[in-house]
C-alpha cells in the first residue's frame, strides 16, 4: 500500500523536475538569444545603413530602394545597357539606355513632360573631391521626352491620372576610331513642375530633391553592385592615392595582412621557443627571467610607448610596416601561454625521445611542437585578431604615411575624411569590409578559439 501511495508522488516529482529542466533550458536559450539579438542587432542596423543613401536616416527603415529585388534587376539591366557591365555599370561609347518615369497628376492639371538632364557632378567631400573624374555630361545625349501612357488613378482621396514618360540616354560614337572615355557613372536629374507627384521609375532614384520636384540618380546605369552596394564600390573607387591613383583600401588590406601574418609568424617562433626554454631547459637565472617577463606584462603599453617610439625613430623605422612588426612581434603574454602549455606535457615523453637518441632540437620540433598544435592554433588566432584590430600602435608608428596604413587607421581616415562631412556610408562600408577576414578566420578556426580559451584558462 505504502509503495502504491509513493508511486504517483514520484511521478509528480519527475514531471516537476522535467518542467524545471525545460524551464532552465528555456532561460538559458532565451538569454543566449537575447544576447545574440543584442550583439547582432547593431551589426544588422549598421549593415543596412551601409547600403542606404542616407545611413543616418531617421526613423529607421528596413525596406528601402537598395534592398528591393525590382531595383536589383533594373540596375543589372541598366549597367548592361550603359557599359556592358551588369555588376559595376558605367557609361561607355555606344550606350543606349531607355528610361521611364511615372508621375501622378491631380485632376484639373494638364500633365507636363519633365525636363531631363545629365548634370555634371563632382564629389563635394572626401577624396573624391580631389580627383577629376570623367563627366558623363560631356558625352551624353538625351532624346526628347515622350509620353507613353495615361491611366486614371487615385492617391488617397485625390483623383487624377498616372502619366508615364519615356526617354533615351545615349552615348553616340561618331567615329569608331575615336578613343572616347568611359564614365564611371551617369548622373541623372529629372525635374517636373511642382504638383506632379513622382511615383516610379525604371530605377528608384537615390533622392528626391526640391520638395519632390527633382528625382536625382547618382548613376542611371549603376549595375547591381553600383546600386545596391554603392558605398562599398566607392570605398575602392574614391579612396585612391592622389599621387599614384592606386586604391588605398586594397593597399591597406594588403598591409594589414602583411603585418598580421609576419607578427603571427614571429610570435609563433619566438613564443614557442622561449616558452619551451622557460618550461624545460636548464638555464641559470631562469626564475628571474620569468619574473621579468611577468613584470613586463604588468606594465601598461601606454607607459612604454614614448620610449618605444623614440627607439623606432632612431632605427628609422617610423612610418614603415616593419616598425610596427618589430614592436608587436613578440608578446610576453604569448610566451607565458606557451610556457604554461609546455609544462603540462609529461616529462616522460621527452625522456623517451632522449632514450631514442633525439637531441633537444629534434625533440622540440618533432615531438613537442606537433603536440602543441592546439596552443599554437590559439596563439595564431589571438595574435592575428589582436593585430588586425590594433589601432594605437599603428597610429603611433604609421601616422602620416597613407600608403602604409593598416585597416584600423584607414577606418579612422574614412571617419575624418568622410564622416566629418556627414557621409557615413563609406565609413560603415569600409568597417564591414575590414571585418570580413576576421569573421572568416573565426568561422574556420572556431574550434581553436574555444580550445585556446579553455587551454589558457585552465593553465593560466
Amino acid at each position, binding site marked *: 500500500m505504502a509503495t502504491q501511495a509513493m508511486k504517483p508522488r514520484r511521478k509528480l516529482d519527475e514531471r516537476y523536475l522535467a518542467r524545471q529542466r525545460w524551464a532552465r533550458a528555456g532561460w538559458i536559450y532565451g538569454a543566449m538569444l537575447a544576447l545574440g539579438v543584442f550583439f547582432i542587432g547593431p551589426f544588422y542596423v549598421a549593415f543596412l545603413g551601409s547600403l542606404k543613401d*542616407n545611413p543616418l536616416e*531617421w526613423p529607421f527603415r528596413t525596406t528601402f530602394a537598395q534592398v528591393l529585388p525590382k531595383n536589383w534587376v533594373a540596375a543589372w539591366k541598366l549597367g548592361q545597357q550603359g557599359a556592358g557591365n551588369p555588376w559595376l555599370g558605367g557609361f561607355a561609347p555606344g550606350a543606349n539606355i531607355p528610361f521611364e518615369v511615372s508621375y501622378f497628376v491631380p485632376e484639373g492639371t494638364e500633365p507636363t513632360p519633365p525636363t531631363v538632364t545629365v*548634370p555634371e*557632378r*563632382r*564629389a*563635394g*567631400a*572626401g*577624396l573624391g*573631391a*580631389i580627383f577629376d573624374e570623367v563627366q558623363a555630361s560631356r558625352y551624353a545625349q538625351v532624346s526628347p521626352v515622350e509620353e507613353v501612357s495615361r491611366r486614371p488613378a487615385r492617391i488617397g482621396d485625390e483623383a487624377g491620372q498616372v502619366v508615364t514618360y519615356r526617354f533615351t540616354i545615349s552615348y553616340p560614337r561618331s567615329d569608331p576610331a575615336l578613343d572616347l572615355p568611359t564614365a564611371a557613372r551617369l548622373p541623372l*536629374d529629372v*525635374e517636373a513642375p*511642382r504638383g506632379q507627384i513622382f511615383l516610379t521609375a525604371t530605377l528608384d532614384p537615390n*533622392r528626391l*530633391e*526640391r*520638395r519632390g*520636384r*527633382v528625382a*536625382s540618380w547618382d548613376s542611371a546605369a549603376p549595375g547591381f553592385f553600383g546600386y545596391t552596394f554603392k558605398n562599398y564600390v566607392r570605398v575602392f573607387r574614391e579612396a585612391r*592615392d*592622389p*599621387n599614384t591613383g592606386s586604391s588605398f583600401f586594397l593597399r591597406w588590406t594588403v598591409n594589414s595582412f602583411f603585418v598580421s601574418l609576419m607578427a603571427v609568424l614571429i610570435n609563433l617562433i619566438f613564443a614557442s621557443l622561449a616558452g619551451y626554454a622557460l618550461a624545460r631547459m636548464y638555464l641559470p637565472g631562469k626564475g628571474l627571467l620569468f619574473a621579468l617577463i611577468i613584470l613586463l606584462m604588468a606594465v601598461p603599453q601606454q607607459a612604454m610607448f*614614448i620610449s618605444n*617610439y*623614440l627607439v623606432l*625613430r*632612431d*632605427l*628609422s*623605422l617610423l*612610418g614603415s610596416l*616593419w616598425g610596427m612588426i*618589430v614592436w608587436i612581434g613578440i608578446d610576453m603574454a604569448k610566451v607565458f601561454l606557451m610556457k604554461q602549455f609546455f609544462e603540462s606535457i609529461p616529462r616522460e615523453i621527452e625522456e623517451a625521445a632522449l632514450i631514442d637518441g633525439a637531441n633537444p632540437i629534434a625533440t622540440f620540433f618533432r615531438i613537442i611542437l606537433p603536440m602543441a598544435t592546439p596552443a599554437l592554433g590559439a596563439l595564431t588566432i589571438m595574435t592575428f585578431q589582436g593585430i588586425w584590430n590594433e589601432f594605437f600602435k599603428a*597610429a603611433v608608428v604609421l*601616422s*602620416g*604615411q*597613407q600608403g602604409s*596604413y593598416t585597416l584600423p*587607421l584607414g577606418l*579612422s*581616415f574614412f*571617419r*575624418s*575624411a568622410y564622416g*566629418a*562631412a*556627414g*557621409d557615413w556610408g563609406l565609413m560603415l562600408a569600409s568597417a564591414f569590409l575590414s571585418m570580413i577576414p576576421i569573421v572568416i578566420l573565426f568561422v574556420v578556426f572556431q574550434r581553436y578559439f574555444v580550445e585556446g580559451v579553455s587551454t589558457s584558462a585552465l593553465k593560466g
Partner: protein
Amino acid sequence: MKRLWLIAMAVAGLSSGLAQTVVKLQGFGGNDTAIMSSLVREVVNPALEKDGIRAEYQGIEGDYKAALLNALAAGTAGDLFYVDIFWSEPVFASGKVEALDAYFTKQELGVFVPSLLNAFSFKGKIYGLPKDFNTLALQFNKDLFDEAGVKYPNQADTWDTFKAKLKEVQSKLGDVAGMCVVADFARFGAFAYATGWKPFNAQGKTVLDANFKRAFEFYTSLVKDGAGKYAQDLGEGWTGGCFGAEKAAVAIEGNWIGGFLKDKAPNMKFGTTFLPLDPVTKQRGNFIYTVSWSMNAASKNKPAAAKVLRALTSPEAQNWILSRGLALPSRSALAGSPVFQRADKYGELSRVVFNGSTRQGGNVLPFKFGSYDGGDWMRPINEALQAVITGKKSVDQAIADAQAELNKLVK
C-alpha cells in the same frame, strides 16, 4: 635583430647623407594628408628645389591636438605644424612655438587678412600664419521661400525682420522649420558678438550682461515663437543637416556646407547672405575659424622652415587650394580671385564667407577663448541654451546658472 639594426643604420646613414634639408610638416589626417601632400609635391617642393629644401607632410589620424602636444613634449613634432585657433593660446603660451616676427617682414605679414593674422598674435607677436579660414554665413533655400511667398533673407535684415520671415515660412509650409536651432555657442556666439558683447571683459572675466541676455533671448525665442525648431527634435545634429534634408529653410554655416550640399542635395537652389543685424547696434557678429602654420621652437632647420612656410602660404599655393574649392585663402589680395566672382551658388557662398572676415562681417572675433579650453568655456552657455530651448529653465535662471559656472572656471 642585429641585421635589422645594420639595415636600419644603413638606411639612416643614406638619408642623412643627402644634401637636401628636409622640413617636416604635421597636420590633420584624412583628406588633409591627400591635399597637402599633393600641394607640397606640385607647388611647394618645385619652388624650393633651388634652395635644396624638401618639405614632407605627415597627417595625424585621430586626435590631432593630443598628438601634437605629445610630440611637442617628446621633441618629435614637425618643423611646421597646424595649430587650430580653438586651442592656440595655451600652445603659444607654452613657449614651444617660435614667434615668426624675426623671419617675416612687416610687408610680408601685411598681405594676410588682418583679422586672421590678429587671431594668431599673442602678446604682440605673431605665432602662426593663417593657412585658410571660415566664417559663418546665412544660407537659405530659395524654393521654400518662394513656396511660402516670403522674401529671401538679405543683408539688411535685422533679427526682427529675419525672425518674422522665418516665422512666416514655418507657419505657411507647416512641414518645414524656419531654422533648426542648435544649442551651441559656435552659432549663437555670432549673435552675442553683434551686440558688442565680448567673451572676456577688460578684467579678463566672463560677464553675461544685458547685451548677452538680449542675444540669448532672441536666439532661444526662435523656437518658442515658431520661427525654428530644435535640431535634435528634427533628428539632426547641425543646421546644415536640417538644411540639406529640406527640414529647415535656412542654415548658419561656413564654406564647408558647400561640399556637404554637393553630395547631399546637388540640385538645391540656395542663396547665401550675411547674418542678420542686431536691431539695437545695427551691427552683425561673426566667428573666425582658422588654422595656422606655426613653427616648432625646437626645430633644427628654422631658416629652411621659414622658406617652406613662405611657399605654403604663397599666392600660388593658396590659388591651388582655392581653385579646387578646398578652402578659402587667407591673403587679402585673393579676394579678387575669379573663383569668388563665379555667378553660381557656390561662388556666392565662398564670397560671403570670405567677406565675413572683413568689415562687412561686423564684430568678428576668432573662435578662441583666451587661455581656457574652448570646450570647457562654452559648456555652461551651451547647457543654458539647451535648457531654455527645451523649456527646462527660464532665461534668467539659465543665465544665472551659466554665470555661476563660468565664475568657477574663469579666475
